[in-house]
């Protein structure tokens, strides 16, 4: 584990972390019904509509809008009655016209409880270089109150110097539309990115006062793009991440996980301060959404303890939905240990602290041995003292100092690995003896 582990010691820890496959160490088996199909549930729901980016310019099937509409209409009634407090539409204009977008939102509103006003977090992820003013106006008119802008891989890798002026002009124009929050997804780790260019770009981002900045690993987010094959080596990757992490923290941004930065006035920062931050596979939210419904090709869902994934190929997706089949190609339910690990990791990602006494009494766990063992193992891998990564306060609470937050991904990985190793060691005896007080 050590070489790979060392190379990933300072990496982004949000997004799809931890993957169910990692928690359960197993490939996803065949689809099965999600938990929330079973009982009445009126808790807020997050929805992610995914239009694949890799299909840009490569002919998305013309039937995609129709197929998406059919997938929306085919959702079970118990999901439809839940208020949709968070909506993320990835790349809405990638092959969708203004009319298609309006029709799909109309369909979504006809089948789900979309919330009015600003009581929701409805966000569209758009390429700032491609999006037109009409598209932005339509998004606002359709009820999106947040924007997440992305920069094309070409601009992020070889033409980084050209980005700042265009970004500045466009963000100023976007501000006129009165979005509650404008975020930027900053992909780092392209080989062509030079530290001074990244510093210049992050200075621009800080100057423009983006409410949210998400750092994303080029290899994870743009693995389909030829430019991403020219990714930085692991040492450069760490340097880029550390540079961005420090620049944002030193300029007043609050950090969630270790890769999501928010201005102190942003609702996510407020939710973090008030201990009401939630996260799903999608990202963080302040609207109490713990379940995620994924729609569209390649979308991930997380309903209760069940994860599911849609068919990623747009053609096959359309074919399946057109034939009245489910587009879900795999689903997985976390076992008890996986759920507990997810709880612990969610706490660390959201608050950088773990109330050990509360977690142990609430969930009948012996957490301390797992934590100590994981941190000790990680510290030896990183050749640093475990006290530097985490701080324990009276055996009741664990805090992450800045260096610990920087290494949050590694800490979470270590917890997962230690939990799995321990599970493996004790399968012949009684796992519950060690982790749950019966």
């Amino acid at each position, binding site marked *: 584990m050590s070489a790979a582990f060392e190379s990933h010691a300072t990496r982004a820890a949000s997004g799809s972390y931890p993957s169910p496959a990692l928690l359960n160490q197993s490939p996803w088996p065949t689809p099965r019904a999600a938990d929330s199909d079973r009982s009445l549930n009126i808790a807020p729901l997050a929805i992610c509509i995914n239009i694949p980016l890799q299909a840009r310019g490569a002919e998305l099937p013309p039937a995609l809008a129709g197929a998406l509409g059919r997938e929306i209409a085919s959702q079970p009634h118990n999901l439809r009655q839940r208020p949709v407090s968070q909506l993320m539409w990835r790349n809405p204009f990638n092959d969708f*016209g*203004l*009319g*298609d*977008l*309006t*029709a799909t939102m*109309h369909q979504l*509103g006809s089948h789900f409880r979309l919330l009015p006003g600003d009581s929701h977090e409805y966000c569209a992820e758009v390429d700032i270089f491609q*999006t*037109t*003013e*009409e598209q*932005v*106006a*339509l998004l*606002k*008119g*359709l009820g999106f109150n947040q924007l997440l802008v992305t920069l094309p891989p070409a601009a992020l890798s070889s033409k980084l110097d050209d980005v700042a002026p265009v970004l500045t*002009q*466009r963000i*100023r*124009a976007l501000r*006129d*539309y*009165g979005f509650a929050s404008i975020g930027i997804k900053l992909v780092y780790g392209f080989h062509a990115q030079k530290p001074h260019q990244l510093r210049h770009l992050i200075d621009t981002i800080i100057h423009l006062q983006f409410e949210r900045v998400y750092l994303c690993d080029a290899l994870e987010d743009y693995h389909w793009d030829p430019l991403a094959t020219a990714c930085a080596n692991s040492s450069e990757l760490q340097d880029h991440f550390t540079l961005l992490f420090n620049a944002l923290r030193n300029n007043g941004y609050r950090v969630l996980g270790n890769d999501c930065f928010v201005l102190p006035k942003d609702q996510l920062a407020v939710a973090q301060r008030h201990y009401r931050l939630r996260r799903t596979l999608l990202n963080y939210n302040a609207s109490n959404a713990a379940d995620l419904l994924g729609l569209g090709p390649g979308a991930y869902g997380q309903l209760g303890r069940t994860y599911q994934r849609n068919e990623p190929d747009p053609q096959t997706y359309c074919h399946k939905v057109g034939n009245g089949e489910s587009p879900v190609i795999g689903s997985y339910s976390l076992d008890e240990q996986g759920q507990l690990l997810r709880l612990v990791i969610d706490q660390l990602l959201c608050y950088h602290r773990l109330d050990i006494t509360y977690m142990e009494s609430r969930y009948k766990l012996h957490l301390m041995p797992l934590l100590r063992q994981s941190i000790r193992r990680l510290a030896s891998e990183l050749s640093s003292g475990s006290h530097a990564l985490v701080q324990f306060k009276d055996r009741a609470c664990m805090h992450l100092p800045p260096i610990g937050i920087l290494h949050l991904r590694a800490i979470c990985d270590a917890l997962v690995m230690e939990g799995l190793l321990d599970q493996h060691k004790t399968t012949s005896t009684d796992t519950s003896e060690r982790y749950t007080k019966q």
Partner: protein
Amino acid sequence: MPQLKETARVTMDKFASDTRCHTNPQVSCGNCRLNSICLPISLHIDDIDKLDDIIQRSRPLQKGDYLYRANDEFVSVFAVRSGTVKAINITNDGQEQVTGFYLPGEIVGMDGLATNRHTNSAIALETTAVCEIPFTRLEELSIKIPSLQRHFFQLMSKEITSDQQLITLLSKNSAEERVAALLVSISSRNQRRQLSSTAFRLPMSRADIGNYLGLTVETVSRVLSRFQKQGVLTVDKKEIEIVELGKLQAVANPIGF
């Protein structure tokens, strides 16, 4: 004799032209001159008759007549055939706020779609003819003709977009930018209707323009005079001639995308 024949031909042409005219209440969608920008644009020639079957054409509205009032039940959308309609909203303090102007070929009344009640009132600014399209029947027809549904949502997206752009215009831009944006909008809408994009008659009063743009009547007049002095346009009461369309567009969208 040849002269008589010529006169007859001219008369016949004129008659043919008149029967095609969108101002004629009897003209069908298939023959309407506005069908290239109105709902039929999306339809195959065979389907235009199906749309025509559900459309109701009544006598023209006179200036000041209401097409519908705020809080009326949402039953139909309306295609403006001739004349101009303004949409108004009554603010919390009882003031009238103009929220849009609808020119021939444009669809008005979609504000009721979300709640089944109209949120605005629509008033004729001059003698105006409309085609009434019952929404339930339009929905039924859309299921049979998907291209109609697509086009309807395109129109709706345009409506939503222009609403948002107006809000942005009012919240940020200067008086010059606001007036320029309205003139550029009318110019491009005229162009779509194959009318002159640079010489037209403003169908609305200065007071309505001021109300729509959040400016006083005096400011609207001052801005128009300033544009005239700068040689961007000429104004003669309601008649406008845009001399420098490029300049006007640049004023309308100073820091756009």
